């Protein structure tokens, strides 16, 4: 759970970028010229010394980023198709005894990574759905419908922001073991991961603040046309909220993929566990080369998602700023 919370902090982190909002909406290309400029002026950039200094700094940063960010991932990619002995004896050499493609299929099939991959997918999709459902319906009611008790609910949701996930780790766990009123145990079911994921105040507040900022006359117009609350949500508010829903979705999915502590606690049954929980355990039982291949497979999907939706990720910062409270 705490992992979730930690990630939430990261997700929400863009929020403080509020002042960026005003400018971020304007085209960003115009770094120079009329008022939109950075640290260096056009004059600075014209000076040879500064220009080369800047280029050198930027080149250095690029090299640093490639080595630090890409390096470990490329190393893993290389190691996952190397033999165990190569990886142990000459970790930085390139395939002294040839490429061992079989690792990947051994990991996928025999080490059953395919099975845990599917579990992870299931965990992530369910968490995504619950988070989106709670955040959109909740945000909609609190921001658009605004019943009289809305401030109370908003405050109660807000209050959970102040309580770190750690404090509820054990009681939440006991709650999952024996749900009050319904007296059911969610242990060893995916509901135990999905439902608590929905209790994410950051999501609700992000969506609420975004919807707060939507022009209210649109709602009035829709109401005039006789749209009920549900119709209005579905055909007016949701389409307009697509940007924020994209951000919430992508972080909800990825955070669920990354989550470790909570699924480890509530899914003790090995056949149900996602990759994060399973990887530390299979380390002891498969050969190193297969294990490294398993690591590579486990990080592949998040990276692909990131590459595909890179713009959404990076724009997250600006969007986060746009929903200031």
């Amino acid at each position: 759970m705490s992992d979730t919370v930690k990630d939430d902090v990261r997700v929400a982190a863009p929020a403080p970028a509020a002042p960026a909002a005003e400018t971020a909406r304007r085209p960003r290309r115009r770094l120079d010229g009329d008022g939109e400029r950075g640290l260096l002026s056009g004059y600075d950039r014209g000076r040879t010394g500064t220009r080369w200094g800047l280029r050198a700094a930027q080149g250095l940063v690029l090299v640093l980023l490639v080595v630090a960010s890409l390096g470990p991932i490329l190393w893993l990619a290389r190691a996952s198709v190397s033999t165990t002995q190569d990886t142990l004896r000459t970790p930085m050499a390139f395939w002294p005894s040839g490429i061992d493609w079989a690792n990947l299929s051994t990991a996928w099939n025999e080490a059953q990574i395919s099975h845990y991959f599917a579990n992870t997918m299931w965990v992530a999709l369910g968490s995504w759905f619950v988070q989106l459902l709670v955040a959109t319906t909740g945000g909609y009611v609190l921001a658009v419908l605004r019943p009289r008790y809305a401030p109370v609910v908003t405050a109660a949701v807000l209050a959970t922001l102040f309580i770190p996930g750690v404090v509820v780790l054990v009681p939440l766990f006991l709650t999952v073991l024996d749900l009050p009123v319904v007296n059911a145990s969610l242990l060893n079911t995916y509901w135990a991961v999905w439902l608590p994921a929905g209790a994410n105040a950051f999501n609700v507040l992000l969506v609420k603040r975004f919807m707060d900022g939507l022009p209210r006359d649109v709602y009035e117009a829709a109401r005039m046309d006789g749209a009920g609350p549900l119709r209005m949500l579905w055909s007016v508010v949701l389409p307009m909220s697509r940007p924020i829903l994209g951000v919430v979705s992508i972080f909800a999915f990825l955070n669920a993929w990354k989550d470790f502590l909570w699924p480890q606690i509530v899914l003790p049954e090995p056949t149900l566990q996602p990759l994060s929980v399973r990887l530390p355990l299979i380390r002891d039982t498969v050969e190193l080369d297969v294990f490294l291949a398993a690591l590579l497979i486990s990080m592949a999907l998040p990276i692909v998602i990131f590459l595909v939706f890179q713009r959404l990720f990076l724009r997250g910062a600006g969007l986060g700023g746009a929903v200031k409270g």
Partner: protein
Amino acid sequence: MSATIRWVRGGGLSTLLLLLPLLLVFGYFAWFPIGRAVVMSFQETNLVADPAWVGLDNFRQVLDDPLFWTSVRNTFFFTGLALLFGYPVPLVLAVVMSELRRGKGLYSGLAYLPVVVPPVVAVLLWRFFYDASQTGVFNTIFGWVGLGPFAWIQDASSAMPSLVLQATWANAGATVLIYLAALTAVRGDLYDAAEVDGAGLWRKIGHVTLPQLRGVLLITLILQVIATFQVFTEPYLMTNGGPQNATVTVLLQIYNYAFRFGDYGAATALSVLLALFLAVMSAVYFRLTRSWSTT
């Protein structure tokens, strides 16, 4: 009663229905457990028998545990190191990157890449990198320039810095993006004005850039403190608190109480103590975002 009904009706029944997912999920998995945490910290339970009230025993036990201060010290150490590594580096990166005219996407993409790697994968991979033998990955690389071999996580004094290094690798990208966003908001006319006053590059950074970023810097500071105080995956998977308890953090201690020794009372008591501390930090954070975003 009817007043209540009218009050609820005030929003309409369909409104309430729409709010139901939020109320149920938060009720069951946020509000109720928070209340229960406070109650549980005064109880002893083994999950089999009915819980018994034990007053402040759990708190006393937690505070008397010789590992309590070790874990607090370690957590502060982790946080301090994380700030030392993870605070200035992203700032420098962001300042350089914000001056890019082309390829900003590439730079930020690269910077952010480690953030999307699942923490468990990253930690297990780095644990292998930290192999202390001559042929360990990092030791091989350092060997090229005649350094090492280093003990990394196999030594009490270097274990925590090694953990922090990994955590910084995993998280710095997110901070870079925050700074980048904030930098685009620094008003150009301030630079113009500084230039009119004849300020050079460093003066501009010192007198315009940093003061303008003050709010964001403070907020990321607090966010980092809050996040690092809940650090778990790294010490749990990399060293499991060792060597010599050098990497036992507060959250690891909570986990061990609950899930290694079955002492749920002590675990919640320590959670409540940690929560009190973090709640203060969060309150500060919230005040800052508020006051800062209205300026």
